[in-house]
């Protein structure tokens, strides 16, 4: 960590063995939580937080890798969830295949969209993402014959999925562990991407796309791939949601869900790999605590977003890191 300014994105020092140890410990601790917690209610909340954490991570990843703000990631999430529901309802294929389909389709959609609108300036892109969410949401509401409309679709999951009894995906005790581990795996995968050659190229493209082209890089495909990766992560969250909830309704496509995921990412710190997930945890914690105290949850969130964006751009996660670094620096003396 250098003292002035933010640490350069490149030349991340490879994490030390100690850091990896701590991370592994944190992940294991999370996984070990259920037996320790008596409350199913808390575990339910944590499971939802973990799934939201994955969705928030997808939005944060796009912002981090491409520098664009998306208000429409619920689209990939919701499409994945609906695909599982529809596949099973109409018995198009085995449930396992449906899961694969639910992951592939949003990813491909994101890639194609990314290629098509690659020359669209950042702000217009953000506006577009809001419109996407709306379009799919309205379709889900209005096309009752297909989607069940506002009533939604119940998902009649098979007794077993990928060899595991379906209860594993639905009981909070096991669902939380599954979602938590998936979250950790997703973050780790994004870490590997960030440190790969591809990651460095996308960083450069984010910083100055034109110059990246002039030093020899093709920029259209990498940018579309970033959107695809981000869409895949959102789809993963959507799949977990569908399996856990066994029910989908148009809410999974609403822009407010996208907005919440975005806010979680910003509050947690979008530049950090684990920032958005951290933001999701904080979000759920505060919502649970404050939800009963105030009716003005939405205004509170809005104000928090404004404050964090302007005053604390590194987010709570980033601030935490700086705090720890300062403490360690002080202790070293």
């Amino acid at each position, binding site marked *: 960590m250098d003292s*002035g300014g933010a640490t350069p994105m*490149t*030349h991340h020092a490879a994490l030390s063995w100690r850091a990896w140890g701590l991370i592994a410990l944190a992940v294991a601790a999370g996984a070990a939580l259920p037996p320790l917690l008596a409350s199913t209610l808390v575990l339910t909340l944590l499971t939802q937080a973990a799934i939201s954490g994955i969705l928030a991570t997808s939005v944060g990843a796009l912002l981090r890798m491409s520098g664009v703000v998306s208000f429409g990631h619920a689209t990939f999430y919701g499409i994945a969830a609906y695909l599982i529901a529809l596949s099973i309802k109409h018995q198009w294929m085995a449930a396992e295949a449906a899961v694969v389909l639910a992951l592939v389709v949003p990813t491909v959609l994101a890639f194609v969209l990314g290629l098509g609108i690659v020359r669209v300036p950042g702000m217009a892109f953000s506006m577009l993402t809001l419109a996407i969410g709306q379009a799919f949401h309205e379709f889900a509401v209005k096309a009752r014959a297909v989607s069940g409309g506002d009533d939604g679709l119940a998902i009649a999951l098979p007794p077993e999925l990928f060899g595991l009894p379906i209860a594993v995906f639905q009981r909070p005790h096991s669902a939380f562990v599954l979602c938590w581990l998936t979250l950790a795996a997703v973050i780790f995968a994004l870490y590997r991407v960030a440190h790969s050659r591809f990651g*460095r190229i996308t960083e450069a493209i984010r*910083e100055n796309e034109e*110059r990246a082209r*002039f030093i020899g890089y093709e920029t259209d495909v990498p940018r579309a791939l970033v959107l695809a990766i981000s869409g895949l992560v959102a789809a993963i969250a959507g799949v977990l949601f569908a399996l856990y909830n066994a029910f989908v309704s148009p809410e999974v496509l609403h822009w407010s869900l996208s907005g919440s995921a975005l806010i979680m990412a910003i509050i947690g710190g979008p530049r950090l790999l684990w920032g958005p997930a951290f933001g999701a945890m904080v979000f759920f914690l505060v919502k649970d605590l404050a939800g009963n105290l105030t009716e003005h949850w939405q205004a509170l969130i809005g104000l928090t977003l404004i404050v964090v964006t302007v005053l604390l751009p590194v987010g709570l996660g980033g601030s935490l890191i700086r705090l720890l670094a300062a403490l360690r620096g002080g202790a070293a003396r």
Partner: protein
Amino acid sequence: MMAIQGHALTRRYGGFAALDGVDIAVPAGEIRGLIGPNGAGKSTLIDVLSGRAGKGASGRVELHGRDISALGVQQRRHAGLARSFQRTHVFPELSVVGQLEVAAMKAEAPNVDEVMHELGLGALALRRAADISYGDRRRLDLALALIGKPKVLLLDEPAAGLSMGESLALAEHLKDLVSRWGVTVLLVEHDMEVVFSICHRITVLHLGKVLAEGTPAEVRAIPEVVTAYLGSTA
């Protein structure tokens, strides 16, 4: 052997011709200066040669005898044509060495250390581009073009905003690089000290056309050039 050649290069914006039928030929190993008043078309010429003008430009561009007119920006770079920018065009949040390494990943000759050393950026290696001084960023902009030992360098006002001392030091570096690497340079500059000190020949542009061409001494003596341009800046 002409390192870079342009035939009938034209760039129109609606009815206005920023570049109007320009022919230019720079032999290998030469440092060619490109001067002219504002609006003469110097940056546009660099844009057309480097492929930045896209479909708005017409004419033929040849690199070491090879027709590169149809090639995109990236492909021209791979063919050995690199450029720097008038308005500094670096990667703000990447470190100096980090962005040079990214450039090197695409190059055949990854000469990051050599370039950093050559341009005095070694001490700034780990600093973010956004945090270094303007002059240092200018040199970084140039350094990015030098990665991979390109055959032809198009430089758009590399000394812009630099102090006199910095400008002359830069000029020395360029002269040095040309003799060591055998690279050909086309240099747009307003700083006449730099131009006259290192350029072998000079092309003068005026209103999108070539006004004159010759050695520094020859060009200095042409009355039209003096009145059109040198008179106002001398």
